[in-house]
């Protein structure tokens, strides 16, 4: 690989940090130049991540754009980054949403704009690093690094109960991570090679099943809190409701996927027998998440809280698909990760638009917006349809694959779970269309009484790529599915037919 190729990944990961440093060095002034730099750098990051897609050769069996530099050989960790199909998709999702997030908060953030932009850029780097890391210590560093910028975003620029929400978010996710750290250390000391490297651990042969159980739970807890899996979900509604729009977009768009990504990349392949044993439970929790999340949505009066619970439901589908352990289901789950990022990110974006105009998230304060702001209504409808999985939008393909793959799964008794999960299709239509009607239909009243300004150019520019993605992925999802085919197959192979347990002596 050429120099550029081998260092491209690092460049993409750290480019936002460069932007953050630049902003930090500039004088405080008004926010204009900070936002400009943030937008510029996030856009650049997206542009130089495009070669990652075009240069990705599926089916090569290794990690693309791999780079390994020794960091602390005595301690066993190195700077090892690389992408497989799954990581590539989420990577691109992150870089795609990056500039859109900066654009979305252009008017809304007025104080401490420089700190805000720095937080956004650092967050982007942390997420990109989490996705690209192939070394457990590196992964953990980036994983934790995601927490602080998000905490700041919620706590400084959020709504009334922002401190509570920010602290809740931080502590909740941190508790899980700490247990994961312990598990990482255990792996290091017992991997036989004193290495934190992911590839090494993967090839080192398995830990014995009883220990695997605890290790898996430690990892799974951290990821399950992040996803969030029912019943560990209660931080999410508060975080979303209190966060500023951009925070919600990036939280729902990417951060939640880190949890599911952790399952696919780390928790399940490293401990396949434990994963297999726990798969039915996770599937059931996924289904509970779908149904419970949907029911919660029906009971909400706050728009952002409603969409937050819909995230619980959507990611329930993802967890169901992952634990079904068939290629169809897992492919669908990975696709849904991307889809959810796009559609729920778009939902939060649009709710942000409405909030900027009316300063209320309460559903009862709305009505008849479609009459006064038809563009908002039309685009919101498209995003709504994507969220409920209408064929032709991106949501359908992922949902369909997850359900049919789960139904066909022999690894877990999939059929009843798929049937239960499919009721999510009905409930999704119920709550989303009910929300849509309450806000947009009917005679213009309350918040819409004196007219609402329709979409501005900036807002169109922010929305257009998302709408395009919704339709494009809906009609042509195959390129994404082809990219993940190989890692998905390898994943299913490894978890449902795990390699032999290590013969080496277990410690002590």
């Amino acid at each position, binding site marked *: 690989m050429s120099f550029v190729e081998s260092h491209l990944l690092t460049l993409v990961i750290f480019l936002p940090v460069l932007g953050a440093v630049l902003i930090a060095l500039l004088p405080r002034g008004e926010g204009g130049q900070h936002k400009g730099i943030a937008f510029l750098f996030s856009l650049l990051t997206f542009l130089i991540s495009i070669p990652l897609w075009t240069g990705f050769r599926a089916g090569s069996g290794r990690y693309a754009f791999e780079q390994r530099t020794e960091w602390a050989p005595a301690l066993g960790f190195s700077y090892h980054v690389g992408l497989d199909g799954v990581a590539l998709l989420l990577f691109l999702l992150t870089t795609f949403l990056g500039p859109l997030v900066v654009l979305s908060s252009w008017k809304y953030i007025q104080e401490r704009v420089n700190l805000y932009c720095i937080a956004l850029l650092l967050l982007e780097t942390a997420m990109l690093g989490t996705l690209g890391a192939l070394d457990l210590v590196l992964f953990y560093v980036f994983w934790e690094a995601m927490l602080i910028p998000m905490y700041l975003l919620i706590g400084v620029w959020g709504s009334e109960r922002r401190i509570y929400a920010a602290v*809740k978010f931080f*502590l*909740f996710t941190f508790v899980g991570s700490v247990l994961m750290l312990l598990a990482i250390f255990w792996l290091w000391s017992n991997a036989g090679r004193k290495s934190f490297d992911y590839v090494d651990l993967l090839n080192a042969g398995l830990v014995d099943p009883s220990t695997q159980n605890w290790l898996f739970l430690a990892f799974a807890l951290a990821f399950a809190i992040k996803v969030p899996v029912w*019943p560990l*979900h*209660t*931080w999410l509604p508060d975080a979303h409701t209190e966060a500023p729009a951009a925070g919600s977009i990036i939280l729902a768009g990417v951060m939640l996927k880190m949890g599911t990504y952790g399952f696919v990349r780390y928790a399940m392949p490293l401990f396949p027998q434990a994963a297999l044993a726990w798969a039915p439970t996770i599937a059931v929790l996924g289904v509970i998440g779908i149904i*419970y999340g949907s*029911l*919660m*949505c*029906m*009971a*909400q009066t706050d728009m952002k809280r409603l969409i937050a619970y819909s995230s619980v439901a959507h990611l329930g589908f993802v967890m169901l698909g992952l634990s079904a352990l*068939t*290629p*169809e289901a897992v*492919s*669908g789950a990975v696709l849904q990760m991307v889809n959810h990022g796009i559609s729920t990110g778009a939902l939060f974006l649009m709710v942000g638009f409405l909030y900027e105009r009316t300063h209320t998230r309460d559903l009862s304060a709305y009505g*008849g917006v*479609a*009459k006064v702001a038809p563009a908002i209504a039309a685009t919101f409808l498209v995003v709504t*349809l994507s969220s409920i999985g*209408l*064929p*032709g939008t991106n949501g*359908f*393909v992922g949902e*369909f*694959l997850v*359900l*049919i*793959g789960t*139904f*066909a799964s022999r690894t877990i008794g999939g*059929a009843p779970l*798929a*049937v239960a999960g*499919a*009721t999510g*299709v*009905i409930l999704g*239509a*119920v709550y989303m*269309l*009910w929300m849509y*009607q309450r806000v*947009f*239909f*009917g*005679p*213009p009243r309350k918040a819409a009484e004196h007219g609402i300004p329709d979409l501005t150019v900036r807002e169109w520019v922010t929305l257009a790529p998302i709408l395009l993605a919704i339709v494009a992925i809906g*009609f042509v*999802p*195959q390129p994404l*599915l082809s990219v993940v*085919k190989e890692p*998905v197959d390898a994943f299913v192979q490894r978890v449902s037919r795990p390699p032999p347990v290590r013969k080496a002596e277990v410690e002590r």
Partner: protein
Amino acid sequence: MEVSWLHLVPLLPLIGAAVCGLVGKWLPKGWVYAVALASVLLSFLVGLRAFLGLDEGVQLFHQLAFNWFSAGSLRVDMAFTFDRLSGALTLVVTGVGFLIHVYSVGYMDEDPGYWRYFAYLNLFIAAMLTLVLGDNLVAMFVGWEGVGLCSYLLIGFWFTDEEKASAGRKAFVVNRIGDFGFLIGIFILFTQLGTVSIAQINSAVIPLGVASLAALCLFIGATGKSAQIPLYIWLPDAMAGPTPVSALIHAATMVTAGVYMVARLSHLYVSAPGVMAAVAVVGTITAIWSALIATSQNDIKKVLAYSTVSQLGFMFIGVGVGAFFAGTLHLITHAFFKACLFLGAGAVIHGLHGEQDLPRMGGLRKYMPSTRTTFLIATIAITGILPLSGFFSKDEILAQALHTRAFSFLTLTPSGSMRLTWLGPLIYAVGSFVAFLTSFYMWRCYFLAFSGEYRGPETVHPHESPPVMTVPLWILAGLSVVGLLLGLPPSWVHGTALEHWTWEHFTEGVFARPRGDAPGEFSPALGFGIALLVGWLGWAGSYALYFKRGLLGDEMLSARLGPVRRALANKLYVDELYDRVIVRPLWALARGLWRVVDATLIDGLFVNGIPALIAWVSAMARRFQNGDVQRYAAVTALGVAALLYVFLVRS
């Protein structure tokens, strides 16, 4: 035969929809009309060319447009199959669709949202064609949900009215319940047969259990889309949309999708005779249920809506007893005359400036001659008092039901005591009664609207509709008449050139034959006689009550059957029942769960409870640090003493 132009059929209306939807607002009105109409017309012409290309040698056209998605062993292509069944349906959809587009130009002319309307209408045609032409169940499902979406958009077209918006939402949600069943059916077939391709399903050997389960689940989808019990409740509310929409979607095309699906998968259903019986029974019950309700409705569109539900029930009877050709024949003829009826109703409403209530109509024959005549023709067609198209199709279904042998080997219980040979004749009897009711309420509708004297307010001056609306009416009325050719019994036309035009002959070999053998040749004369009699009885009853007396007829009935009529007028309280039993408990459950589980249990007990516990323990522990240095010293001394004890004495 593989072709490369078949995709144009659904694609052209899709492009039309895109153009009208995205830029229609800023284009001149004429351009919008032109684009919308042209796309459907072109689609019709492509379909026609294909249709004429079907002959002995070429049974079907097929096109694999592109591989939509594939994962694992599932491969879903966007592919289309144009055979005799789907080809005929394509012509019906595009043909009747085009006529309704033309009609809409007149009907929606003054509505500011006309460009949206035509976009949605085009989108609907595209989705319906995808449904009809789809060569696998997933492609069909795309169309299935697509028409549901268009239904939602069009029913709630005038969205500033809360009620109309709710009606649209109700349609979508109830349809989704059906779609849930459809999806499960797809899953079953995929996991058991390894394919979602319709052709492969239709040629596979399907075990009884698998077939029954899959057929049943798919049929649940059909009850949603085709408004059968228990999911028909959205259709009457769907009348909130513009009347051409009711004509196209809720009479001619979308609601027939369920029937089409059963006919398309005839092999699957034939492999599950128990489910076929269920289909026929559900169809029968639905038919009589809604026919009864239709007799007591005062809104002209509601009468037609319940009539549609009832006629759909007939279609399901047809396919349920194994006479797939009969069910689909009625589908086609029903499209003609029901569309004509609805468009006629639309002309009436348009001419009365929005009046939909029958009690406020009357005597319209004097003001709207074209509307009246076409409505009359269509009413004759549906009630079958003269042998027009509807007569043959409906009668054929009943005859097939009477003589079917598809149930002769089924038993009521698994142990096999009572054979269901009586089911066919029972369906026939009930169906004939429904035919009587159909005649009765349709003629009531006609008489109350067109006969007698005008009962409406002085301020409204009824007038005829412009030609752009009446010409489609005439065409559809003509088709209702000409359509009789499709339904002629083969014994009448055997050997003549007309034989090729009969639907039964045309679809030879398309459908699977039910087990238990085909019904034997039966003399149609008796059946026709009874059908005519039943139709005339309905007409006679209606004539006696309504022709001269107008609304007095209703009053007389109410005097005799007061509570019954009231219940029927209130749609037998089904919506209220669903609301009590399903809707309200569901919302209460949602709110309850939120309060109890999320707020109290998870958040209260664990998420906030554990920190509260820790805080309480800290508060307790904090009391040690009270700032009293002497206390600190004393504790230190005690600690030292303890340590000394441990180290010196215990070790």
